[in-house]
């Protein structure tokens, strides 16, 4: 994981706009987003369904490109990078955690966590050490040889978190990581993320459940593709929506 919050900008969005064109209908998923995320921050993104949260996350994760605007990651503008370059950055700098876990069903727990490291061409010995470390961190080392279908939802999500962690990314991007979990398992995953944050990870998490949003240090509110509110979250200053 990277350093503690030290005022260094990790993610900088300036006037980011995303327009989808389907059957000649324009959808403005994002309109002029400005966002600054510092290293070590824990940011939650909230807002109603369809307001552009996932779109924002996929732009942050270099899975999609903005229609307009600037994105600077780790003081490097990412516009105009080749596909291979983007894949490389995604592999090294970004860790994804999805609502539906998105583990690969034909791979074991161990192989799932190992997968992003193999794309990096990392030597086997180092990979092994990283995978074991990550699995231990999420408390899943004892299930390394299991297939995802043999695990509960909460366990699968913990494996997904381990997969995101294993490569020591600059930022973890989580899209409703608790959305498919019951509250007990959801709480456990949230606690896991909070611990990661305490040890220095930068986390951007989408959630429309403000029970969870309060875990974050800072909350960004989207409405209809725009940032309508930014606030430091405390137990008292909860979003009301």
């Amino acid at each position, binding site marked *: 994981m990277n350093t503690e919050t030290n005022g260094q900008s990790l993610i900088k969005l300036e006037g980011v706009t995303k327009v989808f064109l389907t059957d000649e209908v324009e959808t403005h998923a994002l309109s002029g987003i400005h966002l600054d995320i510092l290293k070590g921050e824990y940011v939650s993104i909230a807002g109603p369904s369809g307001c552009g949260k996932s779109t924002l996350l996929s732009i942050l994760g270099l*899975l999609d490109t903005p229609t307009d605007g600037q994105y600077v990651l780790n003081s490097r503008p990412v516009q105009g990078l080749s596909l291979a370059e983007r894949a490389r950055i*995604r592999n090294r700098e970004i860790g*994804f955690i999805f609502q539906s876990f998105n583990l690969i069903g034909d791979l074991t727990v161990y192989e799932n966590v190992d997968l992003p490291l193999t*794309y990096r061409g990392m030597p086997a010995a180092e990979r092994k050490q990283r995978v074991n470390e990550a699995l231990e961190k999420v408390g899943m080392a004892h299930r390394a040889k299991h297939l995802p279908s043999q695990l509960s939802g909460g366990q699968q999500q913990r494996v997904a978190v381990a997969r995101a962690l294993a490569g020591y990314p600059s930022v973890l991007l989580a899209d409703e990581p608790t959305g498919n979990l019951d509250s007990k398992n959801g709480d456990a995953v949230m606690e896991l993320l909070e611990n990661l944050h305490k040890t220095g990870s930068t986390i951007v998490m989408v959630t429309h459940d403000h029970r969870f949003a309060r875990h974050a240090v800072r909350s960004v509110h989207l409405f209809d593709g725009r940032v309508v509110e930014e606030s430091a979250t405390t137990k008292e200053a909860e979003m009301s929506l």
Partner: protein
Amino acid sequence: MNDLRYAFRLLAKSPGFTAVVVLTLALGIGAHTAIFSIVNATFLRALPYPEPDRLVHLSETGDSNVAYPNFEDWYAGQDVFSALAIYRTDGRKLKTPDSAEQIAIAQVSADFFPAVGVHAAQGRDLTADDDRAGAAPVVWLTHAAWQRYFAGDPKIIGQTVLLDGAPTGVAGILPASFHFHRSADLFVPLGPFLDQLFMRERGNRNGTYVIGRLKPGVTFEAARAQMTAIGRRLEQAYPKVNAGRGIFMQPLRERLAGEARTNLLLLLGAVGMVLLIACVNVANMLLARSFGRAREMAIRTALGASRRDLFRQLLAESLLLAAAGGVVGALLGAWGYDIVSRLVPWEMRALMEGTAGLDRGVLLFIIGLTLITGIAFGLAGAWAVNRLLQSQLFGVTGTDPLTYAGSALLLLLAALVACYVPARRAMRINPTEALRAE
């Protein structure tokens, strides 16, 4: 994880899908290879003689055989052939050191070896002195017969063997590379047998064939003009037996191919279609599957897989399928070859003797093609996935008609190549044309 290992695991996990794809490919490959091998051996490949396009089959019109006295007059009257030979085939009992074997012999006239362009590999060649009544009986062994009946004994030359009980001196052994287009284990001069076979009679054709080798620079047409004139003279000289009997000439290869040519080429076209349909079917199955796996590919992309990583993985899978299809196809092909070779007219079977079943070049070609098709499958899959990627991670699904059409087109092209190359080779040959051009 190793791409191949993962591919193997995936395919093993859906045995039904794998079996259908492999069998479809195997059928296409097998049928195509079997037919193409046979067409190649019989029509496309040159006859197994030096300068085969100079070889001509001659007969009396209205008969495939030639009476010996007529042949003698042809021989004396022409100057267009560097060698002109008459031969017939027969059976004999050969006494070997161990037992007696029923074998096939060819009785040939003096020019026979020069006509087919072969010299004895050991011993001496046949001379005009051997080919006359009362000459000491001698025999030339094919390499195969020498190995089979005399265990390749090098001291056999000059020794005497018994043919139907008649002591016959071994004069030579033919090279291993020589394969006559009719079955014959042994070659003996025809001359000593003329009387015994009543072949001095101008009406007796007695199963004979005539083969000629055009002199360098003499065209088929020029030779035909001269032979036609000779034939006409013989009709007038011997009206009783020769009336209406001119001289018929045909390039040897055309003669041998005969009617089977059309049938086999049609069959080749038909199995070409089978291969094409197989490829398109497999393409469909693989594409449907890769659509089903778009989500997995999207996950991999999110984890930082480059396009190359995805392609490599899909490639590993399709190559594995193509390789399995190739192996099973080769087996089916070998089996199909035996079946289809029964369609080949008997005159041509001997041509296939030098070739041990399936043509390795053809098989390699088809397998190479399957691999290319495999790469096309991989490409198409990767491309399809690439286009679908966006929506997958966040739950949207859907198929993309453009991708589908594009991938199908790509595969169709691969399949077309599979048919085009053999078809083009088949269409290019025209022995008549080739002979005339000389």
